[in-house]
C-alpha cells in the first residue's frame, strides 16, 4: 500500500487530494500506467506527462524512479511559487 497525493489541476481532474493505492508497480511510470487504466479521470490527469512532476517521500524524482520502499508518491504540475 502506498499513499498517492495529487495537487493543483491534477487533483482537480482526478477529484481527490489523496488515496491509498494497492500496487506492485516497480517504477513511477508503472504506477501511472496502472492509474490511467483504471478510469477516464486518471487518463485525463496524466494525458501529457511532460506537464506532470513527481515526488517520492517528498523529494523530487523521475518517472523512471523505482518505488521500492517508497511510502508517499505525489503528482503535481510544474511549481509556480515565489
Amino acid at each position, binding site marked *: 500500500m502506498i499513499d498517492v497525493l495529487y495537487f*493543483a489541476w491534477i487533483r482537480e481532474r482526478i477529484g481527490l487530494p489523496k488515496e491509498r493505492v494497492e500496487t506492485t508497480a516497480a517504477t513511477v511510470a508503472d504506477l501511472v500506467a496502472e492509474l490511467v487504466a483504471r478510469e477516464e479521470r486518471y487518463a485525463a490527469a496524466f494525458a501529457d506527462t511532460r506537464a506532470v512532476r513527481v515526488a517520492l517521500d*517528498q*523529494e523530487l524524482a523521475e518517472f523512471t524512479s523505482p518505488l521500492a520502499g517508497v511510502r508517499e508518491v505525489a503528482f503535481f504540475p510544474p511549481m*509556480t*511559487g*515565489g
Partner: protein
Amino acid sequence: MRTVRIQQSPFSYGDESDAFARQAGPAGAVVTFLGRVRDEGGRLSAMEIEHYPGMTERAVTAILDEAMARWHLTAGLVIHRHGPIAPGEAIMMVATAALHRGEAFEAAEFLMDYLKSRAPFWKKEFGSDGAEWVAAQDADEDALRRW
C-alpha cells in the same frame, strides 16, 4: 540564523525586515525581496496558493541551506504564504545578509529563482474570466541554469 516560515496568515514586510536586520550579525549588506499579488489592471480578484505540507518546508529549507553555504550568509530568511491572497497583498519574502553586497544580492536572486520552480507551491488566479492555474514559464526554468 536560518528562518523558514510557511504560513497562511499575512506578515508585515517592515517588521520582518527590521527583525531580520537586527539578528543578522556583523553583516554589512542586507537584501530583502517582497513578492506581491499584482492586480493585473483590475482583472485579478484573488489568488489562491496551494502547497504540499511537509515537502514545502523540506524543499524551502534545503534551498535556503544551499544559498547560505554558497554565499557565506550570516543570516537567511524565507517566508511564503499559502491559501487565499488578495491583490496587493504580500505572497512571500526572502532576506539575505552577508559581509558584502554582491553575495547578499546573488543569494537573494538564487533563492527567488529556486523557490519559483523547485518549491511545491501552485498559484490559482480568480478573475473576471474565471479561475485558472498559473502556468510555469520556460523562462523560470531557464533562470536556474545560471546557478
